[in-house]
């Protein structure tokens, strides 16, 4: 039965859950933005998160990264409870993310942005900076070198423009810089919030290949991706979670999900509903 449904794609992975949430709930006033979500993801898996606008996908990311505190529920990252920790502590544990409307540091260069992604890996203190500057310099130069490699990985053009302020770069490049910044911290878990938002079909295709390449280079990295483009989800996600009104309404491989009656209803509206044209 399981094999028929295509579950073998993820069942062969061991039960090494890197992130588990149980009964995760948050209210904003009267609105229950995320409602009792049980979620789990194995090491090395790519999971897609889909759902109509306002279904709580981004809020779910904000809960994992500590920007919001849940009202109820548990979040276990690598077996440890991370609820109550501040975002920077959670980032230090190895979770990196991008934002829906790329939140880059706009008035400094793309290179600086990527180097900032390595903040958790850099060790020099204030005293080093003032009295032992050589150490800081080597660390920064190593960082700059790695940042250049990361930028070149996405596009040579971007590498050439790496000293320009991010605000001057085109939209696509900004999205790429943000993914570079997230990758720079060598995360165990990477959260991508609509990475292809606002991109043309060709650029989307390119980015998808890049994400696949990231996976090929580092088998260990686990990715959760929010995406509206179903063709992208179909091709990169091992498994899909579907959200609607803050609730998880379905989970499984894309082939199964795409036939799920609840999912179709969520996207297209219920059949019984009067549709005004």
């Amino acid at each position, binding site marked *: 039965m399981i094999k028929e449904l295509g579950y073998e794609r993820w069942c062969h992975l061991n039960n090494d859950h890197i992130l588990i949430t149980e009964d995760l709930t948050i209210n904003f006033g009267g609105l229950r933005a995320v409602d009792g979500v049980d979620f789990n993801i194995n090491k090395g898996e790519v999971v897609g998160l889909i759902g109509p606008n306002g279904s709580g996908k981004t809020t779910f990311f904000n809960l994992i990264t500590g920007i919001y505190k849940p009202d109820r529920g548990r979040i276990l990252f690598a077996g440890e409870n991370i609820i109550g920790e501040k975002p920077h502590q959670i980032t230090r544990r190895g979770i990196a993310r991008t934002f829906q409307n790329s*939140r880059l540091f706009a008035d400094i260069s793309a290179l600086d942005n990527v180097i900032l992604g390595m903040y958790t890996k850099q060790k020099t203190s204030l005293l080093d900076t*003032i009295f032992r500057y050589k150490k800081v310099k080597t660390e920064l130069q190593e960082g700059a070198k790695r940042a250049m490699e990361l930028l070149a990985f996405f596009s040579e053009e971007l590498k050439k423009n790496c*000293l320009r302020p991010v605000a001057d770069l085109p939209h696509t490049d900004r999205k790429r810089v943000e993914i570079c910044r997230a990758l720079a*911290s060598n995360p165990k878990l990477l959260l991508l919030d609509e990475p292809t938002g606002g991109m043309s079909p060709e650029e989307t295709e390119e980015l998808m290949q890049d994400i696949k390449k990231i996976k090929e280079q580092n088998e260990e990295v686990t990715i959760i991706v929010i995406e509206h483009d179903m063709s992208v989800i179909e091709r990169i996600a091992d498994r899909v979670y579907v959200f609607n009104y803050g609730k998880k309404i379905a989970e499984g491989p894309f082939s199964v999900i795409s036939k799920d009656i609840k999912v179709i209803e969520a996207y297209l509206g219920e059949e019984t509903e009067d549709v005004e044209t």
Partner: protein
Amino acid sequence: MKRKEIFEIIPFIFIETLFFTIAYLFLIFEKTYSILGILSGIILFSIFINKIPKLNFFLAKCFSEYKKLAIIYGIIFIIALPILLRNYPYQIFILFNAGLFALLALGLNWQIGSTNIVNFATGASFATGAYTTALLAIHLGWSFWILLPIGGLAAAGIGFILGLPCMKTKTYYLSLVTIAFTLIVYLLLNNLSWTGGPDGIADIPFPKIGNYSFDSTIRLLGLEIPFQANFYYLTVFLVALTFIVDRRLRYSRIGLAWNAIRNDEVAAECQGIDVTYSKVLSFSLNFFFDGIAGTLFAFCMSHISPESFTFNVSITVVAIVIVGGMDNAVGVILGALLMTLIPEKFQVFQNYRMLIFGFIILMMLLLRPKGLFPQTVRKYY
């Protein structure tokens, strides 16, 4: 040396010499008309250079290629300046004052420029350094050289204590807290008995190196240089030191983190930056260097009173950073020179000083929000 090199060095040395001559003339002229003449000359000259792109490009190339030479020439000029000005002790004193403001502004630059915390507490931190060290010197007789770091540390401690609750507020509210703090410190200094009330503290001993007191005239090769030059050199040394610290901070993960916070606090936090820690660090470092400037001020003036630490000091320093350039140390130092020399030269308008400052800040924010010298891009190789 190749002919081409000589061809490039000569015009660049000529320009720099011209610049220094103008600066020198600007310092010694006292009539409003001659000063206005010089100022309009500078403006016309810069417009002339900007109008001819070839010349502009050529000069930029010369300066970047012979950067070391340009810096060495500049240092020689700065060291020689008191000798040139030996008949104008008051001008040396004004330069000392400009140096003090440069110190304060370099510290504040880590707040307004790098981290985008608009901090008006400079007056308070300046006062903390000055009063702490003045009281210690008078009652315990400690020497200036020990008190210099102590003044800084005392102010940094206050900055840390003020910084923690300040982090609960943001933007305008944070500015309001710092304004209130400056006013409270001013009122306390005026009303407490052990700070001397409105009379302040007098007879603070001058700094000494061995038997050489800083209020004695320098005699060099038969030239007599007024004692103000001692303070001038001391200030130049401290500004240079702060400048180096500024550079190191800027090219470090600390400076990068500050810039990240300036742009987007949530995104910064998601890169693993402890935003509260970084902001409090910026506060404390700013207060540390303000404290050092305060100590320098107390010992060089030998008399301090609350009138030197009013809210006006805070406004002036904020204006310097805004005019000079956000997050650009060179710009901030030039801004400090401009903002202290120009009001001094136009004594006629002295009564309208704050009005003019307000106008300048407004115009700068409208026309050049990043200052005369905006932040430069970090290069790592």
